[in-house]
């Protein structure tokens, strides 16, 4: 029933329809507004899930903070002072109320505002995720396209082999191997020790190369496979056959008509992978000692730092929602039919 496209008003959902009618938004804006509203609803549900999940886990911050050697009275007092004894609904509503005022709370451990923790770490993770995506696209897309072009030949077999290896190797194993190879090939290369961009841009880029390769090369494997399959499908389409029949070479036809038509599914995969990268970067962040969001999420989860974990889960949800929107918008650009037909 929910039309995501830019069709006639009667097909729109009620809420978004109201928005569209009241302010008479242009179709694209209405489309975005609808998606934003839906995103907020998802975030609200996610806030309940996040709040409940972290409290389902055994242990609580008072136990972790006081440590196993503390006495029961100290732990009880700490739990009381941290507000852990209040009813869950009260705790949730208080948290939500502060959240709506832009207050994400403070970390139980280092006492720093959660927003500050995220603000300091997010650029590192985004930089890593972007760099890894660039790496994955740079090798995955051309390799997949060429493999399709040379289907069954040596390059195709090699690309498929590499893609298979990339899919089968755990990211952190690949990361450790890269550290070893780099420490032998270029001993002076800063293989560990992350430097923030604001401190030293050149060293920051240097220190991003290896983790970006470690994350990006295996990711490119998925893109390579998708690109190859998608291209092979495109080669069987009438318009490509027409292009070839009217005298275009296979390469010309691929560049002019094939790539653009084949890239739809690849963009979807790449976009969702970028969103997933933010969440999955923990393994690489640990190996390369990058203070990023993945590390923050997992550490706070282990240490029962409730407000930090909750904020991280919401952030990861937000990233997925935004990336989905971005992917849809790119689809509109690549293939204008998408907006009308869905």
């Amino acid at each position: 029933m929910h039309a995501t496209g830019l069709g006639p008003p009667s097909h729109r959902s009620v809420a978004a329809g109201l928005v569209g009618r009241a302010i008479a938004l242009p179709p694209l804006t209405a489309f975005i507004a609808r998606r934003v509203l839906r995103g907020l609803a998802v975030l609200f549900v996610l806030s309940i899930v996040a709040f409940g999940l972290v409290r389902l886990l055994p242990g609580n911050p008072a136990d972790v903070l006081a440590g196993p050697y503390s006495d029961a009275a100290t732990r009880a007092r700490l739990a009381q002072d941290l507000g852990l004894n209040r009813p869950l609904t009260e705790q949730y509503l208080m948290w939500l109320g502060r959240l709506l005022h832009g207050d994400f709370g403070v970390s139980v451990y280092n006492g720093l505002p959660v927003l500050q923790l995220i603000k300091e770490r997010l650029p590192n993770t985004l930089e890593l995720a972007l760099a890894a995506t660039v790496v994955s696209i740079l090798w995955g897309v051309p390799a997949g396209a060429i493999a399709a072009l040379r289907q069954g030949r040596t390059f195709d077999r090699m690309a498929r082999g590499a893609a298979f290896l990339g899919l089968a190797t755990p990211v952190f194993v690949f990361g450790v191997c890269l550290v070893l190879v780099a420490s032998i090939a270029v001993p002076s290369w800063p293989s560990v020790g992350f430097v923030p961009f604001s401190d030293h841009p050149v060293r920051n880029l240097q220190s991003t190369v290896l983790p970006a390769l470690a994350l990006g090369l295996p990711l490119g494997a998925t893109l390579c496979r998708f690109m190859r399959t998608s291209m092979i499908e495109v080669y069987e389409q009438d318009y490509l056959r027409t292009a070839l029949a009217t005298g275009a070479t296979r390469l010309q036809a691929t560049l002019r008509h094939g790539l653009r038509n084949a890239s739809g599914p690849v963009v979807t995969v790449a976009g969702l992978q970028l969103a997933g990268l933010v969440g999955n970067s923990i393994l690489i962040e640990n190996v390369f000692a990058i203070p990023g969001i993945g590390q923050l999420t997992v550490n706070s989860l282990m240490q029962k730092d409730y407000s930090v974990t909750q904020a991280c889960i919401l952030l990861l949800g937000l990233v997925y929602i935004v990336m989905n929107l971005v992917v849809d918008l790119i689809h509109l650009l690549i293939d204008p039919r998408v907006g009308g037909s869905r």
Partner: protein
Amino acid sequence: MTSRMPVRRLAFTVAAIAATSITLAGCGGSGQTQSGTGGGTPHRGGILTVGDESQPLSGLDPILAQAFDAKRFAAQFYEGLLSLGSDGSTLKPALATSWKQTSPTTYEFTLRQGVTFHDGSPLKASDVVFSLKRIVDPAVHSPYGPLYKFKDVTAPSDDKVVVKLADPQSSLLHLLAQPWSAGIVNEQWVRSHSANDLKTKEDGTGPYKLADFREGSLIKTVRFDGYWDKPKPYINEVDYRVIPDESTRVQAMQSGTVDVIQVVLPKNASVLKRRFTVSDGYDVGAYWLGLNTVSGPLANEKVRQAISLGIDRKQLISVGSQGAGVASGIIPPGDPVMAGQTGDLPGTQYDPNKAKQLLAASGAGAVKLKLAIRSNRPDKLATAQLIKEQLSKIGVEVDIMQVPFEQLTSNLLSGNWNADMIQLTSALNADPSQYLSLWFQKGSKTTKVNDPELWRQMSNAIHETGGDQKRRQTYADINRYVAERVYMLVPYAAPPVYDVWSKKLAGFKTEPSSTRMFLKDAWIG
């Protein structure tokens, strides 16, 4: 620092990461200072980079520091009235130049003159009174609070502080000598800051002061020019970078990115020994198997004794601990109170035949035990599996359950063990009474032992005032008593961490707490 021999270097690094079991030679030293070779005479200057596993979880407030990560910083920023020698037990002057015990419950301290806090304000007797009272303030939640039995703390004059206790307490001076269990803070500064501020800021009297705190990546400290123990410290700047993964820390050390690290795995210590100075470690990490002696099969003392005799500790040391372990009781030999000795504990000699006889005599029938250990620790699992194997030979079946650390401690603290045995590894505590309270505290939910005699001995140890020798004896007696009644199984104790430092760092000494307490004596050679 970079290698000119790539192939050999690859071999080192691969060995560090792959699971080869190289046994660590020369392990087991304890109670001895371990210091590195380094050239020249002490001189000022230089930057030292340390690679640490994590930042202080409990923040920088000294009296909240319990884990290594937090104690390391308490030891640089703050000081107690007294300090410890490198054996971890000799008392030395620090912020107090002298002290005397005027009655079994009264101590008088004379303060050092000319000491200033990092913000430039002078140390006053009132700061000391405030600091000590703050430890026992329930609102501060210090885990060390319950260890003190203050009746009153007063400052009769500008340079004197008098501590009156409600009961005699043998551990008092030792507690006052550790920066974490009795760090002296600036009253005015603490009062003008929130509890959260204290987690990322500091104002102590220690040799180094905080220059920059970057959550998750870097803590930068610089030499405190106003430090009282001149000309120390020698190193201008010490940067602590976070490198969570041990194999990455090893790699960072080998590539020269960092100068100092700590490693947990004996095989990494062994590999690094070829190029760097590596401490032998202190045997303060006892492999504890806490037993539920209140209900279940282990409530039967004969069954417990049979299990103790059915464990081949020699094999567990050579295989389970990769040769790094030594014989131990509940209080490990590396704890200064044990002075490197555990003595010959009763019922710990491997004797499978006697174990079978005892088991038959116990009338317990088929014994099945559930052992809960921490997940994701292959080194702990190896020992547990070996124990399972050994006990199967005397007819005892062990079911190993791997549980996340948080759940394990949660089960322990709530008293719902869901197991007959829980495995934990000890770390050096402020006082052995903390170990004992965790497992055996009278009336506590965690306690799975019901023995008034043990509680009497524990109370005696806390209130013993007959001097260090007597205090040691009472703890040695408890160690023996716990082994005799088999309230806990301890196959061995091994170093929980090894300090590793490059040749560029000279004059560095380690001590049992592994908190780099003597960094102020070291210089860049």
